[in-house]
């Protein structure tokens, strides 16, 4: 049996920012639906920065950045323990879900 001499596992920031990206992608899709369906939400986002799309970007990128930093804190700074397959699955699922929500909303729901 051939010995596996390769290192395994990824850094805590690869895990934390990967999880944060998945979360932010889903929130991105949901925020699109919320602001398009609710004039009050869109007006509030417009007031915050002068443009609702700019506010949207700031919120989502903020979730990504803060989330990535936060998810690296548990377990004494080692971040969440997560198998690489699970990380990749979560990342892809988040991006696909966000994409489907956005495309689906503008194709069907808008």
């Amino acid at each position, binding site marked *: 049996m051939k010995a596996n001499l*390769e*290192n*395994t*596992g*990824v*850094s805590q*920031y*690869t895990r934390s*920012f*990967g999880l944060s*990206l998945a979360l*932010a*992608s889903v929130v*991105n*899709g949901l925020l*699109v639906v919320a602001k398009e369906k609710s004039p009050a939400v869109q007006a509030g986002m417009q007031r915050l920065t002068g*443009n609702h*799309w*700019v506010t*949207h*970007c700031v919120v*989502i*990128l903020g979730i*990504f950045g803060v989330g990535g930093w936060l998810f690296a804190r548990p377990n004494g700074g080692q971040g969440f323990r997560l198998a*690489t397959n699970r*990380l*990749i699955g979560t*990342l*892809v699922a988040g*991006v696909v879900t*966000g*994409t489907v929500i*956005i*495309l689906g909303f*503008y*194709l069907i729901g*808008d």
Partner: protein
Amino acid sequence: MNEIIMMGHVFFGVACLLAALWVFVETLNASQANQTRIHRISCAAAVCMWIAFFIGGYWYVTSYHADKVIILKGPWPFAHNFCMETKEHLVIMLLMLATYLPIAAAGNLSANKDARRVVLWVAGLVALLAFTMEGEGGVIAMGVKMGLLAH
């Protein structure tokens, strides 16, 4: 000046796409010899994406309204109602993925199969989304042309 701004947006978007493809292929053949290059090109992909995002975002906020009116009055209103509306929100995911790429590529890819797999998936998603953005941008531009030709 508007047109030069838009060409800059497209240029850096394509540069990001090409950089992501470069990272993908180099990672398939990861070794000590190309480790530094992989990380540098992944950083370049992220920088190009941020530049494309700021240029496009600036133009969208300051100048797109005039084009939007033309598109909506023309024969291709879907160029705004679907393509621009989805593009302006999908691009945020592309920006996050491009920013994440150098984070994922920071490990020892030649010795770490798990790190290589993450980079391959992220680089692939960046390339796929960037290609989609380029296509939608093309349709939006054509929507303006169709609107102008119709009147």
